[in-house]
């Protein structure tokens, strides 16, 4: 392929490194859905374990053996209800959950044959018809007359809103973005959720009724926590992490130093991906899912050299082994034990490379530089070293919320330090930053809010 060969004529950052057809092929479904025959055979592999380890490993506690048993008996509607009752975003989670470190890692089949039941794809098999046929699986309880504000239309916010609506409350969701969905819409690698799945799932979630989504409402600039507390019976904050951590190194302002999450969002927004500018040599700083997603997608868009550089070892990476393997098989190089030291720029102020210092674990157990430096050429540097809470623009009550490690502090029921205010998802200190975790936070917060509004139900 001539496109792959380095050439002086090739501009370093340009769109259309691959043809539209090649890009479309690269961004097709990572794991195609199971046919009925495949699903029945895979479902038959489930041992229907007692107190199943997979269910324990699922952050939302889906009764996995039960939903698989229902697939086996062709009770797909019942199977979907079993899944979605615990995890309203069971469709998205079937696509993006790191099952290899959750349910599938716990599968007892690993003990003898090292091949767990493919729970993720079975979950997708059971839930796909729900969104294709817009099946109504849940009903709302009689109206409670209570009104709850939800800030953020991502997995935590929508999960909370749906459960509240089911319980009979009216919900207003304040969404910062033009399209609700949060990271489901803007934060997930495009090849993991094809065919506008996030929006189809969202439409289905909202179809229960009682959820009013208001677009273009940011906390602080368009609405404040003080107002919400006055106007609503309860408030749930599922605002995510709006800020991006900087590298805090010399030369970071050079053109071509970008936020991984912004580019991923841009990718999701862009209909024709061939129009996106793509670097020839790309360096990604970080070790989590965002780093993997941006690295793999850059490669799929035609970048020639993509390096992920992480300051610790493979075992410490936030991305699972499976995700690391996925990146490697797509041609991404992963380098460990190096911390970024300095961004190098050309005479036009554009990124030309990046200098690293080798790292090691010091005598005190903390990570430390060895003083040994090396550098690589780069036209684009992606920051993927985590996101941070961004609530600075709301100067009222929001500033009094207790924090822990830079995130909101919550109790077991996801109550914040302010009465009548709950929070969940990435913006709280609790749990891993996964879609499935956020869904669970929203669900548990909704149950707590309901108890607060109505007392214990029978």
């Amino acid at each position, binding site marked *: 392929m001539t496109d792959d060969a380095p050439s002086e004529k090739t501009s370093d950052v340009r769109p259309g490194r691959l043809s539209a057809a090649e890009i479309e092929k690269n961004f097709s479904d990572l794991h195609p859905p199971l046919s009925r*025959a495949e699903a*029945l*055979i895979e*479902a*038959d592999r489930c*041992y*229907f*374990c*007692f*107190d*199943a*380890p997979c269910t324990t490993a699922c952050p939302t506690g889906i009764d996995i053996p039960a939903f698989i048993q229902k697939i*086996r008996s062709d009770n797909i509607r019942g199977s979907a209800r079993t899944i979605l009752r615990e995890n309203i975003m069971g469709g998205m989670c079937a696509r993006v959950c790191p099952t290899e470190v959750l349910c599938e890692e716990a599968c*007892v*089949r690993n*003990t*003898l044959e090292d091949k767990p039941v493919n729970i993720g794809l079975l979950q997708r098999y059971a839930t796909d018809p729900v969104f294709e046929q817009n099946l109504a699986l849940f009903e709302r309880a009689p109206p409670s007359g209570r009104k709850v504000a939800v800030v953020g239309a991502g997995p935590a916010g929508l999960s909370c809103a749906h459960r509240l609506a089911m319980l009979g409350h009216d919900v207003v969701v304040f969404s910062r973005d033009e399209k609700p969905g949060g990271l489901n819409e803007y934060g997930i690698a495009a090849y993991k959720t094809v065919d506008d799945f996030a929006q189809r799932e969202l439409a289905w979630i909202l179809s229960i009724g009682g959820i009013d989504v208001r677009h273009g409402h940011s906390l602080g600039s368009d609405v404040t926590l003080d107002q919400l507390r006055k106007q609503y019976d309860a408030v749930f904050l599922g605002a995510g992490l709006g800020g991006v951590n900087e590298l805090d190194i010399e030369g970071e302002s050079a053109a071509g130093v970008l936020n991984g999450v912004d580019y991923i969002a841009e990718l999701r927004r862009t209909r024709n991906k061939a129009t996106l500018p793509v670097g020839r040599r790309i360096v990604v700083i970080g070790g989590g899912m965002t780093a993997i997603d941006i690295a793999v997608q850059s490669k799929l868009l035609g970048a020639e050299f993509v390096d992920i550089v992480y300051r610790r070892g493979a075992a410490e990476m936030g991305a699972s082994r499976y995700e690391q393997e996925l990146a490697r098989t797509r041609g991404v190089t992963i380098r460990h034990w190096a911390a970024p030291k300095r961004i190098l720029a050309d005479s036009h102020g554009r990124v030309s490379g990046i200098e690293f210092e080798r790292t090691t674990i010091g005598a005190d157990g903390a990570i430390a530089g060895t003083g040994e430096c090396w550098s690589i050429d780069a036209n684009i540097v992606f920051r993927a070293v985590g996101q941070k809470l961004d609530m600075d623009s709301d100067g009222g009550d929001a500033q009094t919320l207790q924090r822990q490690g830079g995130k909101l502090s919550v109790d077991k029921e996801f109550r914040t330090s302010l009465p009548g205010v709950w929070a969940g998802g990435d913006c709280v200190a609790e749990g891993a930053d996964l879609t499935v975790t956020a869904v669970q936070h929203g669900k548990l917060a909704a149950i707590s809010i309901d108890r607060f509004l109505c007392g214990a139900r029978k």
Partner: protein
Amino acid sequence: MADLNTTFLGISSPNPFWLASAPPTDKAYNVNRAFEAGWGGVVWKTLGEDPPIVNVSGPRYGAIHSNERRVIGLNNIELITDRPLKVNLDEIRRVKRDWPDRALVVSVMLPMTEQTWAKFVPMIEDTGADAFELNFGCPHGMSERGMGSAVGQVPEYIRMATEWCKKYARIPVIIKLTPNVTSILPPAQAALAGGADAVSLINTLNSIMRVNYDTLTMYPATDGKGSHGGYCGPAVKPIALHMVAEIARRAETKGLPISGIGGITDWRDAVDFLALGASNVQVCTAAMVYGFRIIDDLTDGLSNFLEQKGMSSVTELVGKAVPSVTDWQHLNLGYVEKAVIDQDLCIKCGRCHVVCEDTSHQAITHTVNGERRFEVIDAECVGCNLCVSVCPVDGCLTMQPLTSGVDARTGRAVSAEHADWTTHPNNPMRKQS
């Protein structure tokens, strides 16, 4: 390699595997293919009076599948041959001439009048066939016309027809029995009393496969309606084994040669039938599901097995397990087994725990010292074998006999003495020991 040559009622065949009277033995074309594949013999599809019967032109078969679509059970409503008698007789004569070393038995089904037997028996025997097999087993269609299982369910009719056939036949007569009876002994005794040389069993079981979930009508159906069919395949094997063993062990029928039929799919199934008293076996469903080439595993597997057991012929295996079949009242109530879990093989699925907890004796833990761990509680274990039956890992859960010491459940010392129900104090009818 062990010698698989078998002689049944004086009829020799290169191996004990015959194709049962059924669609696979409908005509010369199929039978020639079967013999080319290596089958030891065939029982030709049942002949009847002319004009031939008529089959439906819709579904004749229905199946129960595993999720991988393996056929576990098959049901059929096909009747006896639908070809003119002369066509069949000509083909039988030719096939027997072409394959003199193979067994060729002819299945017949005739109305219950002596004249028909007097007319047809010599005519069929004239083909050179090795034996008759009287079809008193088919439970569908023909039974509505007073034949098949309608005869097989009335011992007096079995005896009567057997006597007629024996009267006009010089070659051996095998009576094929229906399992659609409460006890297989009266039909087998009737066959014996009528002069039968052997019995073959089982024929198929009355069955309806399921309903069509869209239309809520019987499935499979012919123009919206179905009638019960005959059930066969792996699912019926245990029923067949019981009936074979009963005939083999009961004084009334002991010694009556048996051709075993019912769900034989691989060589181990054949070992079951032979060890429980059958002298040879007949196969149908497995051939209908996989084709004739399964004969290779059947013969090869049986031959290897005999060799490993140090047996030089099939005859040595026949009836080996019969003495181990007895009545419940003779089981040793002093004998104790306990389930044992091999913790190195255990994958911790917990199936043994939940079935014991929910449906049996609460004798398996789920947590030990705060860890997920499944252990047998000897003080509760009655040795029922349910956990062994449900464990998905072969060899992980086994039953081990308690040969000495005290049974932790009953507190009683294990004794080498045999003590069964006949002498048990709780038995009001007990004999003095």
